[in-house]
């Protein structure tokens, strides 16, 4: 997306930067260029990322831009344990902006590969219903194989069993509830040998509960 913005004379050709980061990236950087297209000087009063994971700088620390002058906002994003798509917003307050309404909002959209994908993330059984086994598909999205090394359940009310479909690529976690006459929740921990630490351990859930009104309404 190439959204542009002109606020109080400052022209940002791009207010959204999409970045596809490698799975093992520790930090990524996004630059937003701007130019003062007005005939008056514009001052950046304040800028903020609203997240400790993002450091924002304005090139050279310069905050006042005369007519025709250009500048650059740089956002350094620490990847931490993120995966999937994450939006991070940088706000700039110019002269006269109210404290709660910055006139410039820049977005860094980071796509971080999900190396170990669980689908679905949660299995549900109806209270006082059947105890049929259900499956969570585990798919490894890396060029190198990623193996499941251990599985465990937080609750004895759920019995997990791992099935290998294709070593290093596809697995199924088969969960059988042993108790469906009282509400319960199980957290299933899936450990892998993934070299990227933030993807190594995953978790999925099993829940025994009364259907919500929306789920009841969706029944045939």
């Amino acid at each position, binding site marked *: 997306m190439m959204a542009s913005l002109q606020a109080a004379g400052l022209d940002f050709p791009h207010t959204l930067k999409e970045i596809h980061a490698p799975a093992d990236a520790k930090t990524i950087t996004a630059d937003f260029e701007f130019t003062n297209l007005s005939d008056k000087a514009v001052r950046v009063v304040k800028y903020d990322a*609203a*997240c*400790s*994971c993002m450091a924002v700088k304005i090139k050279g620390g310069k905050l006042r831009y005369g007519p025709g002058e250009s500048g650059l906002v740089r956002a350094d994003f*620490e*990847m*931490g*344990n*993120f995966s999937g798509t*994450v*939006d*991070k*917003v940088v*706000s700039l307050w110019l002269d006269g902006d109210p404290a*709660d*309404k*910055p006139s410039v*909002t820049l*977005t860094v959209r980071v796509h971080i590969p999900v190396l170990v994908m669980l689908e*679905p*993330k*949660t299995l*549900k059984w109806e209270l006082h219903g059947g105890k049929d086994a259900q499956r969570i598909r585990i798919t490894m999205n890396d060029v190198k194989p990623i193996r499941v090394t251990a599985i465990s359940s937080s609750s004895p009310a759920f019995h997990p069993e791992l099935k290998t479909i294709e070593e290093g690529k596809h697995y199924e976690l088969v969960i059988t509830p042993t108790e469906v006459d009282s*509400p319960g*929740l199980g*957290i299933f921990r899936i450990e892998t040998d993934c070299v990227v630490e933030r993807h190594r*351990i995953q*978790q999925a*859930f099993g*829940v025994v*509960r009364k*259907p*919500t*009104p*929306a*789920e009841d309404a969706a029944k045939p």
Partner: protein
Amino acid sequence: MNVWGQLAVISIIALAAAGGTWWIKGPPARVLACDPATLKPDELCLDQIAAGTDVLWVDARPRSEWEKNGVEGSVLWNLDPAEDAQAFEAEVAVRVAVVSQVIVYCGDENCGVSRQVAGRIRALGMGAGVFVLHGGWRALSEAGRVRNSSPDP
């Protein structure tokens, strides 16, 4: 008339106009407005939440702000990389099993974190409806619904 006289006349006229506007239209509205007709599909106004609804409040602000003035009984789930995202997930999974609605809030209406957190909670597929509070913490604070607050008059 010298320059100071002209300045004084202009200032008097400007003040009179501002005073007249204040008198006729009242002071500027500083209380957050929420119009259900303009909400995004996953948003709720605070006054749309029926009394007695089982709600799990999820605070998407930094931990220090949640600890200082979050909603009583809320849980924390933010996108700070220093936090343990799997612990957030597990905590919400445990708590969401006994509610019908999950409502996520962040700082104010400019904050986009609550929508991303709501997406992550929705992806758990636990069954409860997951919404974003329009106006975020500011709306809760004005209504006296957060720790250490009282409703705005």
